């Protein structure tokens, strides 16, 4: 399959510790900004996909809030961290099928409360402790840090990955963030800072964990032909893929070792008709440092088990051979689920990255990761229309 869809608009709201606004407020703001960025009005939008975050307090009824009439495609999408990639895929298919012409995709969340620590925003699964399915939660595997910690330790034991190598991911992200005026965390960070940061869930330290942000990000997807007439350089969608491993809790599980990126990455590359060696820029979901490392392995940027050495070599940092998470990622810039890597991918593909712009940016690979490495999406984006 080929695709003629392109991302024509990007809207990023004020981000981080921004209080007094609901997720819906942020979503309206992001979509308005994305439409204006594209040179469109809200009345031009005839499709809407809404991805609510952890607070789950916005949905497809955003249509009426925006005053949209006669909307042609409309849904709430929930693929957790893989949602942004999924929304772009569905928008592109809707455009390809003639179901809509201009589709807005938005993620919005407002989990932070003034005066409360960030960790309180994600207290863990809010499920009733009922039945045997609750046993892992009752035992203490509730929130993301401890659940990613057991995955990380399995990788460390199997492949010899070290905490210092995870720290290299955090330091690289911070180095990129220092070049990004919009990043929340821009203070210098050293490997020693990482190693001395407090333990959250061993082996994951504070600086292995992403930020928590209030805000929203929206993109506008339309046909390549329409995008060419609009205000911004089009970012063409060359390929996409999804991979959802469905880990089983038993002896042969690959949990912690192989993720859905190993399926969705090759599918997206195949659709795009390019090899992984041709990718110029990587924008990877980095809820934890380990997620970056294992995704690099599963996409094939290094061999399985060699992610630690790869990141410690400086490959992903500014000036490295494999520029990755060039805005600072979720670790140092802001946490908007899959919209964090997608928004930076659009900026890089357009060549609008300023001081952090990667000179060679013909192909950008974007990952989305949800659950505990359970749900994965991939996009391949380019400033060039495929085949032209």
């Amino acid at each position, binding site marked *: 399959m080929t695709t003629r869809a392109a991302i024509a608009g990007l809207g990023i709201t004020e981000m981080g510790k921004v209080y007094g606004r609901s997720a819906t407020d942020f979503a309206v703001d992001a979509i308005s900004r994305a439409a204006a960025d594209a040179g469109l009005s809200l009345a031009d939008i005839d499709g809407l996909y809404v991805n609510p975050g952890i607070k789950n307090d916005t949905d497809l009824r955003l249509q009426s809030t925006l005053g949209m009439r006669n909307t042609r495609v409309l849904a709430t999408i929930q693929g957790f961290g893989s949602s942004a990639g999924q929304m772009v895929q569905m928008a592109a298919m809707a455009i390809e099928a003639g179901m809509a012409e201009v589709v807005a995709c938005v993620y919005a969340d407002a989990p932070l409360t003034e005066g409360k620590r960030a960790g309180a925003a994600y207290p863990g699964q809010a499920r009733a*402790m*009922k*039945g*045997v*399915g*609750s*046993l*892992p*939660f*009752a*035992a*203490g*595997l509730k929130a993301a840090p*401890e659940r990613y*910690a*057991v*995955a990380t*330790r*399995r990788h460390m*034991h199997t492949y010899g990955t070290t905490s210092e190598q995870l720290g290299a991911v955090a330091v690289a992200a911070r180095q990129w963030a220092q070049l990004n005026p919009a990043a929340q965390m821009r203070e210098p960070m050293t490997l020693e800072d990482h190693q001395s940061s*407090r*333990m*959250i*869930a*061993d*082996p*994951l330290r504070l600086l292995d964990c992403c930020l928590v942000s209030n805000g929203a990000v929206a993109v506008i997807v339309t046909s390549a032909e329409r995008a060419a007439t609009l205000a911004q350089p089009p970012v063409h969608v060359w390929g996409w893929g999804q991979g959802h491993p469905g880990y*089983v*809790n*038993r*002896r042969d*599980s690959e949990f*912690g070792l192989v993720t859905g990126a190993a399926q969705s990455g090759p599918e997206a590359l195949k659709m795009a008709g390019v090899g992984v060696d041709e990718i110029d820029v990587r924008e990877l979901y980095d809820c934890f440092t380990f997620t970056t490392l294992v995704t690099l392995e599963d996409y094939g940027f290094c061999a399985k088990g060699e992610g630690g050495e790869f990141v410690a070599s400086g490959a992903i940092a500014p000036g490295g051979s494999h520029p990755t998470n060039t805005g600072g990622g979720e670790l140092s810039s802001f946490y908007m689920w899959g919209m964090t890597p997608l928004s930076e991918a659009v900026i890089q593909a357009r060549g609008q990255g300023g001081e952090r712009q990667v000179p060679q940016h013909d192909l950008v690979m974007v990952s989305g990761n949800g659950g505990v490495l359970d749900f994965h999406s991939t996009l391949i984006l380019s400033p060039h229309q495929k085949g032209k």
Partner: protein
Amino acid sequence: MTLTLIDAPAGLAPVVRDDFSAPFFEASAEGRLLLRWSPSSDAWSEPAARFCSVTQAADLEWRESTGAGRLVTWTVKPGRAKDDQPAVATVIGIVELDEGPWLSLLLPQADAADLTVDAAVRVAWSQPEGSEVLPVGLLV
């Protein structure tokens, strides 16, 4: 038979039964660990499984496990000091039972320094207030 219970450790949350889990908790009250087993595949699955984790067969039955296994991975949550009480670390492990399924278990008596992959673990039992009897793990 009198079941010996371990004092409920901090961090072990109460769980109540539903219809599906009633046989599991009937057995846990007697100190017996039940898993799911498929007669068509002779494969074992975790207690929450609705379908065989190997073949997706829908013929799962409850069957008793030995309760013995080995540590696959773990995390240590350092805890927070409160009101002059020192922080209490919590060790949570994924244990691969000898039959194959994994269980996530609180390891209430484990010293983090003693944790190694493949360490032998056996299931023991504890009962937080307002809860069914729940499995925990002890290093052997």
